[in-house]
C-alpha cells in the first residue's frame, strides 16, 4: 500500500513528531495531508507544506468530523503533559473522540503514538511490549496508559483497526525535551549527567520513529498490536549528552547521583510547589476578588519556582530513567513492521547540530 494520493489526518501536526511526519508524508510519499490547527503560533513549520489546515483540536468532535471526512488513515500524535485534568482531557478523552470520529468516518486504520513511559521509568531487562504497564502517579504516563486501555476496549467493540507505537525518548531537530531543552541547559551549565551518564540510552531519532509510524500505517499485520520503537543502537547517556555538549564547545558535564541526596530538599520543594499550583488550579473560586487573589498566588508561586531554578532539577522519574541500565527488546517491530532504523546516532547528531545552528539555538 502506498500513501500517494491518499487522504490522511495527522493530529498534533503543529508539534515536533506530527510535524515531521506531515513533512515526510507530503514530500516523500505524496499523501494528501490534513492537519488540525489550534495554536497558529506553532503553525509556521507546518504551513511550509501544502497541507489542508482545519481549525480545531481533538477535544472538539465537530472539527474531528470535518478533518476525518474521506480520510483513510489517522495518525494520532497529540499528547500533552501538565496537570492530571489537562492530561485526562487531551490524552484520554481526546483519544476517545478521535476513535469515535474515526469509526464514524469509516477510517481504515488509526496509528496511535503512545510512549515507552507506559512501562515506567525502569522496565525490566530486555523488556518488550508485554512488560507490565506501570502507573506511577505521573499524569502524562498514567494517562497514556489509560488511553491505551481505552483503545483496547474500543477496538474490542468496534471494527476500527488501531496500531499503538511506544517510542522511547524522541530526539532530533525540533525535539523540545530531548534536544532543545538539554542543549539550552547545557549552555547554562544546569544539565548534569546522572551517575556519570552510565545509564543505558535508548533514544529514538525522530526520522526513525517516523519510519516506524509510516510502516504501521501500512501494515495490516500490526492491527491491534503495540510496538516499542527505539534507535536500536543502545548507548550511554554520557555518549548522548556529551555529543550535545561538544556542539557548544564543552567536553564534560557535571554528574549527580541517582540518589541525589544533595538536592533532595530542592526536589521536595519542587514537588511542594507543584502541589500548591495544582491546589490553586483545582480550587479556583468563581467569585472576585477571591479568584483574582488565587491567580496572583498562582503567578507568585510559579515565579518563585522559576527563580529558585528548581525546574532544572531532575524529577524522581528522570533520575530513575537516566540511571537505568539494561536493554529494551524491539524485535517485534522488526519482525511485524519491518522496522529498520536508518538514521544512526552520529548522523542524527550531525543533522541536529546543523538545525540547532540554523535556528540559533546554539551559536552559529
Amino acid at each position, binding site marked *: 500500500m502506498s500513501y500517494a494520493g491518499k487522504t490522511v489526518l495527522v493530529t498534533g501536526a503543529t508539534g515536533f513528531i506530527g510535524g515531521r511526519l506531515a513533512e515526510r508524508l507530503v514530500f516523500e510519499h505524496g499523501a494528501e495531508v490534513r492537519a488540525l490547527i489550534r495554536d497558529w503560533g506553532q503553525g509556521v513549520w507546518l504551513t511550509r507544506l*501544502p497541507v489542508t489546515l482545519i481549525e480545531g483540536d481533538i477535544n472538539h468532535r465537530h472539527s474531528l468530523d470535518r478533518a476525518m471526512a474521506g480520510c483513510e488513515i489517522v495518525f494520532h500524535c497529540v499528547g500533552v503533559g501538565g496537570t492530571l485534568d489537562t492530561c485526562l482531557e487531551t490524552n484520554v478523552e481526546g483519544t476517545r473522540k478521535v476513535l469515535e470520529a474515526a469509526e464514524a468516518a469509516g477510517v481504515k486504520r488509526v496509528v496511535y503514538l503512545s510512549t515507552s513511559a507506559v512501562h515506567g521509568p525502569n522496565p525490566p531487562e530486555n523488556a518488550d511490549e508485554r512488560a507490565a504497564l506501570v502507573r506511577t502517579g505521573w499524569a502524562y504516563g498514567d494517562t497514556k496508559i489509560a488511553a491505551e486501555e481505552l483503545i483496547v476496549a474500543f477496538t474490542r467493540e468496534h471494527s476500527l483497526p488501531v496500531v499503538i507505537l511506544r517510542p522511547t525518548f524522541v530526539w532530533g531537530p525540533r525535539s523540545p525535551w530531548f534536544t532543545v531543552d538539554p542543549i539550552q541547559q547545557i549552555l547554562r551549565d544546569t544539565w548534569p549527567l546522572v551517575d556519570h551518564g552510565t545509564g543505558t540510552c535508548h533514544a529514538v531519532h525522530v526520522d526513525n520513529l517516523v519510519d516506524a509510524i509510516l510502516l504501521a500505517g501500512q501494515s495490516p499485520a500490526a492491527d491491534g498490536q503495540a510496538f516499542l520503537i527505539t534507535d536500536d543502537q543502545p548507548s550511554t547517556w554520557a555518549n548522548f549528552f556529551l555529543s550535545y555538549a561538544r556542539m557548544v564547545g564543552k567536553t564534560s558535564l557535571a554528574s549527580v547521583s541517582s540518589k541525589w541526596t544533595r538536592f533532595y530538599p530542592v526536589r521536595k520543594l519542587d514537588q511542594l510547589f507543584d502541589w500548591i499550583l495544582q491546589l490553586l488550579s483545582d480550587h479556583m473560586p468563581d467569585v472576585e476578588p477571591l479568584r483574582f487573589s488565587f491567580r496572583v498566588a498562582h503567578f507568585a508561586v510559579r515565579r518563585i519556582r522559576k527563580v529558585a531554578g528548581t525546574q532544572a532539577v531532575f524529577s524522581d522519574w528522570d533520575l530513575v530513567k537516566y540511571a537505568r541500565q539494561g536493554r529494551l527488546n524491539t524485535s517485534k517491530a522488526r519482525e511485524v513492521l519491518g522496522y529498520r532504523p536508518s538514521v544512526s546516532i552520529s548522523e542524527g547528531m550531525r543533522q541536529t547540530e546543523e538545525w540547532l545552528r540554523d535556528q540559533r539555538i546554539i551559536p552559529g
Partner: protein
Amino acid sequence: MRLAIVGCGAIAEAIHIPAALQVKEVRLVGLVDTDVSRAQALASRYGIERAESGLEDISDQVDAVVLATPPHARSTLAQQAIEQGLHVFCEKPMANSSAECQMMLEAAHAAERTLAVGHIYRFFPNRVHIWNLYKSGQLGRMISVDVEQGDPFKPIPRTLYTLRKEMVPGGVLFNDGVHVLDMLFWWFGDPETFDYRDDSLGGLESNVDLTLNYSDGGTAHFRLSRTCRLSNSIEMRFERGELCFPIYDMAALTLELNGRSGQLVLHTTAWDFVEVAASQLRDFALAALDGVPPRVPGEEGLRTVRFVESCYQRASRRPRVPKAPLPGIPW
C-alpha cells in the same frame, strides 16, 4: 483631504488610525471593513464619523483611501477607488502579484491619481541619514550588507492570513521581508544577480537566505525567519566606514566613518511607529494635493513584489531531493 481607511485589522488600529488623526493635512472621515461591527467599534472609539462595510458606501465622501486590508484584496479595491477618482495609499506588500501591481499602476496613471505604498523604512530617521551619507559619497562604495531579521511567529487573529496559502503567495519573505528588500533597492538599486534559498516544501516559507550581488562587487546578505530569534540588526561596510543599527529601531545608529566612531541617536523626541506613519501619510497627502510623486510611489511597490516573485521562481527550480529536508534552511 478627506480620508477613509479600508480594512480595520491590527495595522489599522495600531498605526493608521492614530497616525491619520495626527496629520493636519487629512481629515479621517470614515472606516471601512467587511466586518462592519469592527469598523463601528473603532469609529466610535476614535470619534470618526462614518463606519461602512464597503468602499462604495463612502467613496463619494472622501478624496483618498488608505488600504490596510490583507494584500489579496488590495488590487481590486485600489482600482475601484481610483476609478472613483480617489488617491490611494496602499499597505505593503502592494498586492499578491506583479500583474496585480501593474494593473493598479496603469489605473493610477490613466486617472492621474497618486498611488503610494507603505514601505515605511524610507521614513525612519536613521535610514534616511544613511541614505543621505551614501548618496553624498561620504561612505564610498558599499562592500557588504548583512541583515538578520527573525522572531518566532506571534499570531494576531486578524493577521492569520499570512499563514494561509490560499490568501498569500508567499510566507516570511512576502509578508515580512519586503521592508528590507525595499530598503536595499532604495539604497543600492537592483542587484545584478542573486542567490535564494528557503525552507518551503510546497507551502509558505518560514526561513529565507538571500544574497544580492551588485555589479560593483558589493553584496547584501539577508537572513529572515519566523521560526527563530535572530539578531534583528543591519550591519553595513563601505569603503570609508562601517555602520550598524537594530532593525526595529528608527533612530539609533552606530557609525564609524574615516576612522572615527560614535553612536548617533537621531532626533531628540521619541520616535515611534505612529509618528513615522504620520510622516508617511503626510508625504502621501502632500503628493496627492500638489500633484507630485510620493516618496514611495507604486512603481517601488511593484519592484519589490516582482523581485519576490523572482525568488519564488528560483526556489521552484531547485532540484528535488528524495528525502524531506530538515526544517529550516541548512540544505
